[in-house]
Structures are given as structure tokens and as C-alpha cells.
């Protein structure tokens, strides 16, 4: 495994999982989300937006074992997951800005980021709806006899919607190569998990489907990478689906209008102290990665995000006629 970071190489997945690459991707996502917040404050982002600040390790760790020929599906809090797969920063910014050069030509927006060229098959804004669709990607792989897998991210709020149950059951009964990654950030929108869900250790939900269920520290990028990596290997080997519960925390509220005041300050402080990015930088330092390499990665990420945003801001709006395209094939 190379220690080098492959910044925006031609292959979006090249070096995915290498230590400094994990760090670079997490940093880029963090800086990207901070820019989105600023753009929002300037009224340059429409509708709502759901930042994943604080949850970068789940996206980056879980996507690291994936290939572009796999299928990753995520939620409306999906900027990080799509970038983790290797979607270009500029076209991702552009999509959220509603530009013609956006990933979806400006017709998707923040909640529907998609870049199939890197295996990011969509961000879904109806809670749980993409879980059955992820099983379809698994079914297609089995049907075609390939070793591709599908992986879907979803929040703790999704485990109480019917589509979750139908998808878990179908994946289990057919042993589909689908990995279910639950980002348990302890709140379903504004409601604490304990008020909505009787079993708080969500990995136990997997028992009901005779599926392996694993709980992992979602703020430890390497732990996520290892657990999901094993699940991906099992899926590729025809051993069926896995449910992964990644414990994490969003640093911000649910969406732009939510300051998150329902969360106790001690809880927020405790999780901020467990920020996945400085934590991973400490790990790298302990492993002997020189501080200047880490600093250089941070500097490169900062300038990459700034450059890509500048380019995206300069791109034009979509032509009005574009709204009639892509309704039908």
C-alpha cells in the first residue's frame, strides 16, 4: 500500500485506501462542506442542504474497498460519499450550485448527487428508498456472474422505514452481494435514537435477517475500512450481505435551518473531541508519517477545494431547454 496521496489522478479510485489518500479525501470533504455552508449563507445554494461534517471517516473508510465497477448508493447527506468515490470536486460544487457542468447538469442538486463514472449511483432523498435499489445492483451482479458489489449508506432514521426491512430481507434470502452501511449519528432528523428505536445497538437488527451485523467506530477511518473491506470480500465471494453500523456524529444540525439545539452541549463537546480528521492525523504521526507530509496533504486539499470552487462558480447556468431533456430515454 503506497503512502503517497494520488491527488485527482485520472483513475478516481487509484490509491483509494492508502493512508494519505484517506486523509486527503476526508480533508477535501470537510473543506467542501465548509464551503457549501458559506455558499448557502450567500444564497448561492437553493433548497436545503445536509452536511456530513464529522462523518467523513464513514464515507471515506467504507468507499475505500470499492471499485468503480461497484455501485455506491447514498442519502441526501451524501456529498461526502460521492466525493469519497472520486467524483470531481468542481463538478460536485457545480451540481450543488445548479450549473450546467454539474454532475447531473444541474437537475439533481445537493440531495441527488450522482456520478456513475466513479460508481456513485445516486443520492436518494426519500429515507430508505435506495436500499431496495441497492439489492437490484446486487442481483444484477449475480445475474451477470460478476464479482461487483453494491453498498448503500443510510442513517439510523432509516431502520424504521419499511423499505429497509424489505431490502434487508431480500438481500439475505437471495444472499446478494450488498453491504448495508448504517451511519448511526444518534439522531433521526431532530429525534434522539432512544425516542424512536427500541434496540439502540442497531447492528443487532441484522440478527432478524440471519445476516452478519457489525458495529464499528465510525470516527475511525481505518476501522471502517477494515470492517467494510471484510464485508466486501464476503460479498464478492458469494457469501451474501452484511450490515455495518458505524457510530458517528454530525457536527452540524440536520439541515441548514437546524442549529441542533436539541443536543446536550456535553455530548456535542465529547464528539467534537473525537473529530475523525485530527484523530487520524495523530495515528499517522504515531506511525511515523512526518508532520510535513500531513501538513502538505492539508495544504494540497485546501488549494484543490479553492481552485475547484472558483472554476465551478464561473460556469454558466444550464440552458432553459435542458429541463426537457432526460425525462425519457
Amino acid at each position: 500500500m503506497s503512502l503517497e496521496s494520488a491527488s485527482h489522478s485520472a483513475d478516481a479510485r487509484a490509491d483509494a485506501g492508502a493512508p494519505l489518500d484517506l486523509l486527503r479525501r476526508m480533508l477535501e470533504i470537510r473543506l467542501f462542506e465548509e464551503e457549501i455552508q458559506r455558499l448557502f449563507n450567500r444564497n448561492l445554494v437553493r433548497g436545503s442542504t445536509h452536511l456530513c461534517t464529522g462523518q467523513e471517516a464513514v464515507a471515506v473508510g467504507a468507499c475505500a474497498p470499492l471499485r468503480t465497477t461497484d455501485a455506491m448508493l447514498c442519502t441526501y447527506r451524501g456529498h461526502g460519499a460521492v466525493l469519497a468515490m472520486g467524483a470531481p470536486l468542481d463538478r460536485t460544487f457545480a451540481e450543488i450550485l445548479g450549473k450546467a457542468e454539474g454532475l447531473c447538469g444541474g437537475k439533481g442538486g445537493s440531495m441527488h448527487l450522482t456520478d456513475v463514472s466513479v460508481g456513485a449511483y445516486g443520492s436518494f432523498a426519500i429515507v430508505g428508498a435506495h436500499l431496495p435499489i441497492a439489492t437490484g445492483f446486487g442481483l444484477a451482479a449475480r445475474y451477470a456472474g460478476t464479482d461487483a458489489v453494491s453498498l448503500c449508506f443510510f442513517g439510523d432514521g432509516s431502520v424504521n422505514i419499511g423499505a429497509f426491512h424489505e431490502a434487508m430481507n431480500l438481500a439475505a434470502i437471495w444472499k446478494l452481494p450488498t453491504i448495508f452501511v448504517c451511519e448511526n449519528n444518534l439522531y433521526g432528523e431532530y429525534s434522539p435514537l432512544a425516542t424512536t428505536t427500541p434496540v439502540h445497538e442497531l447492528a443487532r437488527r441484522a440478527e432478524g435477517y440471519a445476516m452478519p451485523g457489525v458495529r464499528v467506530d465510525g470516527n475511525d477511518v481505518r476501522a471502517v475500512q477494515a470492517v467494510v473491506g471484510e464485508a466486501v470480500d464476503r460479498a464478492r465471494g458469494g457469501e451474501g450481505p452484511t450490515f455495518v453500523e458505524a457510530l458517528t456524529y454530525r457536527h452540524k444540525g440536520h439541515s441548514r435551518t437546524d442549529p441542533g439545539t436539541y443536543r446536550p452541549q456535553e455530548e456535542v463537546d465529547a464528539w467534537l473531541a473525537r473529530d475523525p480528521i485530527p484523530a487520524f492525523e495523530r495515528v499517522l504521526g504515531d506511525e511515523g508519517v512526518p508532520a510535513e507530509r500531513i501538513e502538505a496533504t492539508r495544504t494540497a486539499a485546501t488549494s484543490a477545494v479553492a481552485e475547484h470552487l472558483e472554476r465551478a462558480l464561473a460556469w454558466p447556468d444550464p440552458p432553459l431547454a435542458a429541463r426537457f431533456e432526460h425525462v425519457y430515454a
Partner: protein
Amino acid sequence: MSELTYREAIKLGMADALAADDSVFLIGEDIGAAGGAFKITEGLIDQFGAERVLDTPISEQAIIGAAIGASIRGLRPVAELMFADFAGVCFDQLVNQLAKYRYMTGGQVTLPVTVRLVNGAGGGFGAQHSQSVENWFLNVPGLKLAVPGTPADAYALMRAAVRDDDPVLLFEHKALFNMKGSVDTAVAPLELGRAATVRSGTDVTLVATQVMRVRAEEAAATLDGEGISVELIDPRTLVPLDMETITASVARTNRLVVAQECPPNGSWGSSIVAGVIAESFDLLDGPPVLLSADATPVPYAGPLERAWVPDAERIAQAVRDSMDAA
């Protein structure tokens, strides 16, 4: 050319599609080992294997979701919803996912999914197994809607739906399953969006689908004896809708009657009436007539259910009314 029932024509359409293209597979509840609740898929699992005729749990969201994901990978799933009413269980998958996935991604994905839905009243199945639900989807751009009313159209629309690169909801009317008719499997592929002129006439344009089409043919024969010449048009697909054929007919007859097996509000019939009034008002000699089922759930008892949906005599009377009004 062979004489087939509507049921056999649907099955043959699927069998021929399965034989023609390895990427086609069937998915649904009890469609394999059990042969389907209406025996439409009977024997297909023996012919094509359990890998291509997939029995699912009772999970409509999973059925449609799995079809969506598989279609994006280049497969052509034919998903069955045992009763069209069950579309309510997976409405999100159909209208928020299947219909919009291509649009929201700026055309990055294509979804050649065919969804078969068993439609219609007349069997005494009660309010949750008797609806014709195509109108639920009329206001959802991204879906195509096919409503075959004969064995020949059932076969041709099945083949066209599976071949189409867009999602097609194919509504099969359960009261037509035993209807016989000649089916030519060698004809050129039917293009979605082409109405059939079932009968040519000069006095009134009558538009109807499925069971209403069958009853409209009876009504037209009766009216012929009364000296009223009916031109009967079956749109065959509601999206895309062949308004050109309907308008051209109204240009000749100057009168329009639509008969449909559903309540009137927000229906395909009201859309056609509104379209003709808005675009072709000058062609009309009198107000169009929209003959619908009652605006109630479908009742169970035989007399109540028969009264709920227009019969041939009520269709004939609607045509006479349109003549009188002019």
C-alpha cells in the same frame, strides 16, 4: 397468426422476450413455482429456469427497487404486481425512484423496466383488488402507460414495453384474461403511442380502453342499427397518448365521447376531453361526454359492482346524448 386468449398472449409476449434477449428476467410474487396468481406465468420457470423467473417475498418495494437497480446495470426486468392496487404499497419506488432516476441524474442512467399490473373490476374482488389505477400515474412524467384491450395488443405491447428503454407500466385487465383473438407474432414491433381505430364511423368519436373498449364495440353495433355511425378509438397507451388520431377523428365526426373504468376526476378521459376542448374547440358540434365509473370505491356485491362501471347500454346512451346535444 394464432388464436390465443389475452392471458396466453401476455405469457407468449414474455416468453418470446425471454427467448430473444438474455437480459430479460421476470420478478414477482408466486410467478415461478406457483405460475402466478392468475396463471399468466405458468410454465415459464420450467422453460427459462429459476434464475430468470424469480419468486420474491411479499415485498412490493423490494420487487420494484430490485428491478430499478438491475435495469441500471443493463438488464430488462419484467416485474409483476399481482394486483394493480398493490402499486400503493410501492408508490414511492414507482413515482419517486423509477420515474425520476434518469431525470435527476441528468440522463446518466437508463431504466428499461416493465411493470405488469393486474387491473380492473368485475370479478367481485372488492375495493382493494379491483381498481384500474393507471390514473395514479398520469401526472408522473418519466413513466409510460400501456393498457392493452385485445390479445393482439397484449402481445404487441408486452414486446414493445420490454424493448423500450424507458419504464413502462403495463396494465392487464383481469376481466379480459379469457378473451380470445388472433395474435400475429410476426408483425413489426408496435410503437408505443399509436392508437388503434377499432371501427371507422362518421357521426361520433368514441374513445375507450380495455373492458370499456369491448363494451364500446357492442354499443357501436347497437347504434349502427339505429343509424348512428361510431368511430371507436383505443389509445392503447395513455403515455405517450396519440392525440393526433383522436383529434383527426373528431375533425370528421365533430362529436366526442370517452368511456372509462374509473372515477372521472384526474383521469385520462378527462385529460382527453380537456385537450380536445382546449385545442380543438371549433371542431365540436356539441359538448363532449365523459362516461366514467362512479366516484366511489369499487363495491363488492354483484349488482353494486355491475352498476359501478358503465355497461354497453350506458355507453350507447352516452353516444345518443352526444348526438342530441349537438
